[in-house]
């Protein structure tokens, strides 16, 4: 694969080597990240990556995405909330343990954690970075003629003596700095190999560097770019008109792309992004115009024309086009009731404070709760088998009306068939409050009884809501009933 991967800074952790990338949750354990980086630079095989990820247990990691690019196409593996996004065809979404899909060649694929920003696309040949998205960019994106130029260069800029390398050391090096204290891999290795040129030989030579990458990188914290010209004396630096810059950024840049900042890390060795400065501006006459100096449109992938015009410009047909917001941003947040939820191993949502899943009873694994639009809390099954969904409340009676002064989403109004007029016009209301389902008698003539699972029938007091659980039977006026069930 000739083109480097590109990523957008974010809070997830991306580990990549040429032709393969893994995207992990923001709180991925450091030892896993280091182990994956070692795998990527070792065999570089997706199966080995998966082996590593499940080593602590099949469900230890809630979400991840991984992809391996080859000439035949791209293999995409997705679990949990991350998404594999090919630029053609359906997104790859995690189902069950994980989804494993092959995307045909000619299709760019991006792995998306859902929490990337609108930042610039940065190239990354091999390394560990804090990213929101990583992958291959669509055709219209970031490939540049300079890449092909630089394929002439023999390998990789490496930051240490060639003979010092071995496949064992990288893992070890990832663990310690020159002073022996453990290094957070995300930091130590993040900028080590931005410098690598995107040649086909790269995978084979990947192990040859970065071991002591931490060391030179540490030295001048004020100049974050590790491949400082002074080190160009090293024999592995490719001869060429601008030895310090040519191997630097795979995508043409006359300005070498500086290492990414790991925002969450306290042990940061990088202090700032120098790309705003002129310090490293073009020295080589061979460098073509730097495509990276053009601001990258932050809003949306280049392919989406309607998006660009929907956000700018005066009235014209493009501006008038309707777009679905989910195409503009990764998340849609509506003005619906939000709840704090946790997910069970089967993917059901439950209150974060619950110990077991409200749908299937499975114990909820420890996890970071998240806010989500309240899911449908279940349904009411009427005597004749018909169901009323509990995505909103319900008022039932012979002639149900909206209660006076009602504000908020309109509840379903279900008219009950009762020729004997035992049921009152406005008999009862089932309402939703956060995660709870409540039933309330609206002052009916013949009353409402509630039978919670395993408990005796209780007569409701008028206008005094009672919380009900799945399996509860509610008897209306003694003549008809319904059962509250959760969605399986």
């Amino acid at each position, binding site marked *: 694969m000739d083109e480097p991967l590109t990523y957008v800074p974010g809070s997830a952790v991306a580990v990549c080597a040429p032709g393969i990338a893994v995207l992990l949750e923001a709180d991925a354990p450091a030892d896993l990240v280091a182990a994956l980086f070692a795998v990527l630079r070792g065999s570089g095989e997706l199966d080995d990556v998966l082996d590593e990820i499940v080593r602590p247990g099949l469900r230890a990691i809630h979400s991840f995405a991984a992809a391996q690019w080859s000439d035949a196409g791209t293999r995409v593996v997705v679990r949990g909330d991350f998404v594999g996004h090919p630029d053609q065809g359906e997104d790859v979404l995690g189902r069950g343990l994980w989804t494993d899909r092959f995307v045909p060649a000619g299709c760019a694929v991006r792995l998306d954690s859902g929490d990337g920003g609108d930042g610039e696309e940065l190239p990354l040949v091999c390394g560990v970075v804090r990213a929101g998205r990583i992958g291959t960019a669509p055709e219209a994106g970031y490939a540049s003629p300079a890449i092909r130029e630089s394929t002439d260069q023999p390998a990789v800029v490496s930051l240490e003596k060639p003979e010092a390398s071995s496949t064992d050391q990288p893992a070890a090096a990832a663990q310690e700095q020159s002073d022996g204290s453990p290094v957070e891999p995300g930091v130590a290795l993040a900028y080590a190999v931005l410098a690598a040129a995107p040649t086909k030989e790269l995978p084979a030579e990947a192990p040859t560097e970065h071991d002591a990458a931490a060391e030179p990188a540490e030295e001048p914290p004020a100049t974050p770019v590790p491949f400082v010209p002074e080190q160009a004396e090293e024999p592995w630096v490719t001869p060429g008109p601008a030895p310090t810059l040519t191997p630097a950024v795979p995508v043409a840049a006359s300005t070498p792309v500086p290492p990414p900042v790991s925002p969450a890390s306290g042990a940061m060795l990088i202090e700032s992004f120098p790309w705003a400065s002129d310090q490293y501006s073009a020295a080589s006459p061979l460098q073509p115009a730097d495509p990276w100096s053009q601001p990258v449109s932050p809003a949306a992938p280049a392919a989406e024309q309607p998006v660009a015009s929907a956000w700018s410009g005066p009235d014209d047909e493009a501006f008038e086009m309707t777009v679905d917001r989910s195409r503009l941003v990764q998340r849609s947040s509506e003005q619906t009731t939000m709840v704090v939820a946790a997910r069970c191993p089967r993917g059901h949502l439950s209150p974060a404070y619950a110990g077991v899943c409200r749908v299937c009873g499975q114990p909820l694994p420890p996890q970071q709760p998240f806010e989500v639009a309240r899911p449908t809390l279940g349904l009411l099954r009427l005597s004749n088998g018909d169901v009323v969904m509990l995505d909103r409340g319900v008022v039932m009676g012979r002639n149900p009306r909206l209660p006076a002064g009602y504000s908020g989403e309109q509840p379903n109004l279900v008219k009950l068939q009762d020729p004997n007029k035992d049921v009152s*016009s406005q008999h009862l209301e089932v309402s939703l409050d956060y995660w709870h389902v409540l039933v309330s008698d609206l002052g009916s003539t013949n009353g409402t009884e509630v039978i919670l699972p395993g408990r005796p029938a209780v007569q409701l007091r008028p206008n005094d809501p009672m919380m009900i659980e799945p399996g509860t039977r509610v008897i209306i006026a003694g003549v008809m009933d319904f059962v509250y069930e959760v969605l399986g």
Partner: protein
Amino acid sequence: MLNAVSGARTDIGLKRSLNEDSIVAGTHLWAVADGMGGHAAGDVASRLVAESLRSLDAHLTIRPGDVVACLAQANERILDYAVQVPQAAGMGSTVAGLAQVMVGGIEHWAVFNVGDSRVYRCHAGGMSRATVDHSETEELIMEGRISEEEARHHRLRNVITRSIGTDPAPQVDLWVLPPTPGERFLVCSDGLTTELTDHQIADVALSVVDPDEAAGSLLAAALAAGARDNVSVIVVDLPATEADGFDPADDITLPRLKLAREDLHG
């Protein structure tokens, strides 16, 4: 089946080159679908939605769940189409409509929507919204940041937050209510509601008795106001007859105890 009468119009408007709205005026299901997406994919998307709903209308009895399932199918069809025709990526459609459904053995209305096409309900001299828009501007209105009037001109007015043709499938808002004789529903695309204020719409909807004339008048008003988008409107009436007269005695519920004694003594 309820004896509803309706009138429907759909028009390309004055500025567009294609009508990407589709309408369904069935025997017990009415809907408007407003398609979006480049390369005329919006036209395909709204037609896929309309076709799905038309097949549903062919069933004699439908339940609220059937409407949701039908829209889920339409969603899949749109996704499949977009996979096969890559230029159609991003295609989708809104939908808003009204269906007669059975709940608990009694006919009810199901008012449903995904996106910013709307259903209004007129009754007893007043008109109110029967659906909530799934749009950026609706969120701003709910947050109190802009007014309804501002929303109609807002630069984000074309950004909707749910549409048919997404993965995962969108949540369909579906509201069940019992039929009320004498009520009227309007189902329309945002081509109408962007040109006319709710007051202007109500003026026509509450005064023109014949539903077909009402639909025509509403379209004419939208055209007169500029019709920058495709305009679709369906008017559905549930006529009131003497037989439907509301009997206050209906409100009285007899205590069961009393009834039992009467039963015993014939």
